[in-house]
């Protein structure tokens, strides 16, 4: 499916995140003491320094902070997708992550609400894409 290097599923710290993606969920650690949701994965909370934290399934909802549109192929792997947009999504739980938008670039704008949808990158390895929560046409 992909010829690019895949995430290291054996990384004990981050593997729950990658495993959740393959099951169609975005999971991040939530601090048991202060409730801060963190990404990237870490052994302790960067806000209150409490160790540990439970892996929680997030809502998959957020808003577009900004986005870049790839009109011409810059890499053979993505040539067939052009034009496509990659957004920096501000998740409602706080973290910001990148994700490819499934909507046509001309329908996007900063601040619009989006929701995650999931694809398989390779056997057992998933990835989150995003689509507008409500397409502008509807």
């Amino acid at each position, binding site marked *: 499916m992909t010829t690019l290097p895949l995430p290291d599923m054996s990384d004990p710290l981050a593997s729950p995140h990658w495993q959740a993606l393959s099951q169609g969920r975005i999971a991040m650690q939530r601090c048991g003491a202060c409730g801060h949701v963190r990404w990237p994965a870490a052994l302790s909370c960067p806000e209150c320094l409490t160790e540990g934290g439970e892996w929680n399934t997030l809502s998959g909802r957020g808003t577009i902070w900004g986005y870049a549109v790839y009109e011409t192929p810059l890499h053979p792997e993505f040539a067939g997708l052009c034009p496509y947009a990659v957004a920096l999504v501000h998740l409602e739980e706080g973290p910001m992550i990148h*994700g490819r938008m499934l909507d046509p670039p001309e329908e996007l704008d900063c601040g619009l609400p989006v929701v995650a949808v999931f694809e398989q990158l390779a056997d057992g390895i998933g990835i989150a894409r995003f689509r507008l929560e409500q397409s502008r046409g509807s």
Partner: protein
Amino acid sequence: MDPAAQHSVAIVGIGAATRQAVPGWRAEDYALAAARAALADAGIDKSQVNGLVTCKTLSGAGGDIVMGRALGLNPAYSATLDYGTCNFSIHLAAMVIAAGLADTVLLTYGTDQGSRGGDFSRYGNHDIHHGMVDAIGSMAALMFRRYQYLHGASEADLGAVAVAQRRWALLNPDALHREPLTITDYLAEPHYIAPVRPSDIAGFHDGGAALIMTSLRRARDQPHVPVRLAGMAQTAQLGNLANPDNYERRWMGDVADRALATAGAKRSDVGLLMIQDPASVWVLQMLEALGFAEPGGAGAMIAAGETALGGKLPLNTSGGHLSERYMWGWFHILEIVRQLRGACGARQVADLHMAMHASTMVAQKGSVSLFEAAL
């Protein structure tokens, strides 16, 4: 430490390396060639250097262990920064001198990323699978999209940066890009990663830069007018990667306030501004965050000629990373030194007293330095 100690440190020698003497030069070879030029410029021998501050490339080349061996130096103090962008390296050297660890410091940077491939051209791990195939271009595009959303800016507002810096580069014989660029030419370029165009992104180049810094007392004996470090401040926004302010560099205003306070200066004292510009949107963001333009007003300010030769705030007068060459902020400082020495020929800023350099590192660290000629 004497709170005024930083006021007594000056740059007395500069060196640049832009061409291979023989094929196959590595990052360290450029740094070494630049160091040789800086020593000659300062009129000193390496035996007078007792401090070494080097800046690594993102790929890890150019550390003090390697450079010290290549230079045959056994200094009283040496250190390496992973994120030099020149500003940070200068601040460290000033602290070393002020603390008495060394009194004459050589600073070096060299890179072979032009021939080896750009350090910023690839995204690691998962992000490539989103289709983010160029880190700097992708960041620039989504940052400018955000800027447009916040301020209603046009693509011509962004283009004003590349056009203005090209105009400066036409006055710099050492600039790599010396073909005229008008806003019409700019807007006719196809997008690279929309909404940014090829002229919005710096290329990757080989080269090196070096500085000699010493106490102002010693600097009086050197051949050139010493360029005094008049003020400095930093910020390290490392704790929260999800802080949207990082992507807009808003905290650079606070860094500028603190740097100006250490110099006892105000914004209107700044007669030359050098902003580190791997991508043009960094310039819009910082010109505003630093307090020199209204939010959303930087593009119009530049297009109106206010940052051009004869304007009220000449900006990136070498052509910057976009048009001179990409050297992680180091050539910006060389330009400041040459301007304050009055050695810039056709692009010389008249009646220049104080210059500011502003730089950021991966939108997390920020740094501002102020310089003036110690006549």
